[in-house]
């Protein structure tokens, strides 16, 4: 059997399903003695379907995922890390500091070098969002 990304993903889904079925579901749901449907029934059924379908996927004659390009995935992960760091910093530094820095960092990372667009993304855009939410809608931002 040829090892493909599709099959590795199917294996991971099976492992996650088994982990859910035997460790997470028993620990994170309460035991109830009455009624036909216990709190763990629906998650157990869903996990069982997940494992069954992933097993079929594992043994089916599927090709490799065409969209799988490691460079793209790594770059997407880098953007995710950038945004996650910004969101975690937001309660401490505030939207007014974090949003322009985040916008500028993203635009520079995707090789945007035109000054007017950098100015738009890093200054005008966060300012307009701040004005609309705080001044116009009267809501709070961190």
């Amino acid at each position, binding site marked *: 059997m040829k090892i493909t990304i599709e099959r590795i993903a199917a294996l991971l889904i099976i492992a996650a399903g088994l982990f859910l079925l035997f460790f997470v579901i028993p620990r994170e749901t309460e035991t109830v003695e009455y009624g036909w449907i216990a709190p763990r029934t629906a998650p157990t059924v869903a996990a069982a379907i997940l494992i069954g379908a992933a097993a079929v996927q594992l043994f089916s004659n599927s090709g490799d995922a065409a969209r799988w390009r490691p460079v793209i*995935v790594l770059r997407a992960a880098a953007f995710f890390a950038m945004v*996650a760091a910004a969101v975690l910093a937001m309660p401490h530094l505030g939207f007014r500091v974090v949003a322009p820095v985040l916008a500028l960092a*993203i635009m520079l990372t*995707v090789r945007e070098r035109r000054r007017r667009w950098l100015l738009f*993304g890093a200054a005008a855009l966060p300012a307009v969002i701040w004005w609309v*939410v705080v001044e116009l*809608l009267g809501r709070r931002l961190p």
Partner: protein
Amino acid sequence: MELATILAGLGDAFTPLNLCFVLGGVVLGQFVGAMPGIGPVMTIAIAIPFTFALDPLPAIGFLVGVNKGGLIGGAIPAILINTPGTPDAAATALDGHPLCRRGKPVKAMKMALYSSVTGDTFSDLVLITIAAPLAVVALKMGPVEIFALMVFAFAVIAGLIGESVTKGIIATAFGLLCATVGLDPEHTTPRFIFGFFELYDGFPIAAVAIGALAVGEIFRRLAMMEGKVRPAVKIPRGQKPGDARVRWREYWACRFVLLRGAAIGTTLGAIPGMGSTAAAFMSYASARQSAKKPETFGKGALAGIAATESANSSVAGADFIPLLTLGLPGSASAALLISAFLIQGIQPGPLLFEEQGRLIYGLFGAMIMANAANFFSGLLGLRLWSRLVMAPESAVFCAALLLCIVGVYLATGGVFGVMVMLLFALLGLGMTTLGYPVVVFIIAFFLGPRFELAMGQTATILDGSIAALARHPVAVALLCLAVFLVYWLGIRKPRSRTAKDSRP
């Protein structure tokens, strides 16, 4: 339905305030539809948290406007730069772009506009006519039939959306699993809380929808950007009237193509899982097959644009048929509209016509208004929207990302919701990369609590005995159909495709 309720609903819709929101939605939809990469689905996802403060009718009217406007906007980049703004506009590029290259971009865009409005109006009229009688039929179904119907719907959606049935089933199961987080509907005990009290009500709907559908896609698009600037498009000024205008006789010559496209789009749109892209290509193929001069297709035939645009736009209205009558969303935009209904405290389904008849007819009125707004806004804004095609993706995606963060922060009241959004963005990104349908996951997530409730009621009614199911022939038929569908789409069809592929 009483006539007074219908008139009151329509009266609610036709107010200046609602018109402003519908028009605003249409303009925004055309605006974002014209920018490849954003599209109406992402915009609806971003806009939902900003509609919290509104009353249900203007809020949903605004989102419907975005959806309808996006259908027209999506055709603009397809025609001008051969890059569809939305997936369903891909078929429009087949004839729209060649017509643009022949020096008639405005004519191509106007034909797309007229066809889109025609198809959309047709499907809205079908929806208004048949939704209420269908809801009456749906109301006759008990919990067992509803449970079976949901299983059937999951089978259809898992089978038709995405590249394989097994991947669809995995996405469905995962969506149902994520929906079990929070208090269980039967005993109200907490599940999968992991010490986070914010999860007592489950994952926030807005965070999941925006994360999986919008932010995940933004990350993917940002990662795929390689610093290239899109080619500029120049619309020639001072064109001959014949080159910039669609004459009445040209439009009238396409009447059968338009009608057939609208009928195909409406039929497919009413089936959950059958997207507008399939409708557009099916209508195009059908128009080409029945054309007197099929060789003109692909070279800038107006009939080609008419076929695709009438079909893909008519799906928008038909999407509401299963949504309003059964509470089953059949597409990403319908799933998002369900979340908007839920956030406004309205449960879509057959009871909606009894409990919120006035709102529903208000919504129908808003849809008709949106069609008119689409037409006039499109006529006035085509040249303006065509300039947006050149807007840099770096700025567009930055704006979208900041709006997603702010929107979810406002909707969930804190950074926790934004972190949940990022978690589901990662999940959406992973699913898209590996070919698992995110839309199926979202639909299953939204329907999860209702599904579990229906499962509990079914088990109680049947007293735990499967044999008792024999007393519910409709449910048995639906469950058998679901099994057959999974077999047909998952085993039979791929096998015949493999056999065909291996033939020399």
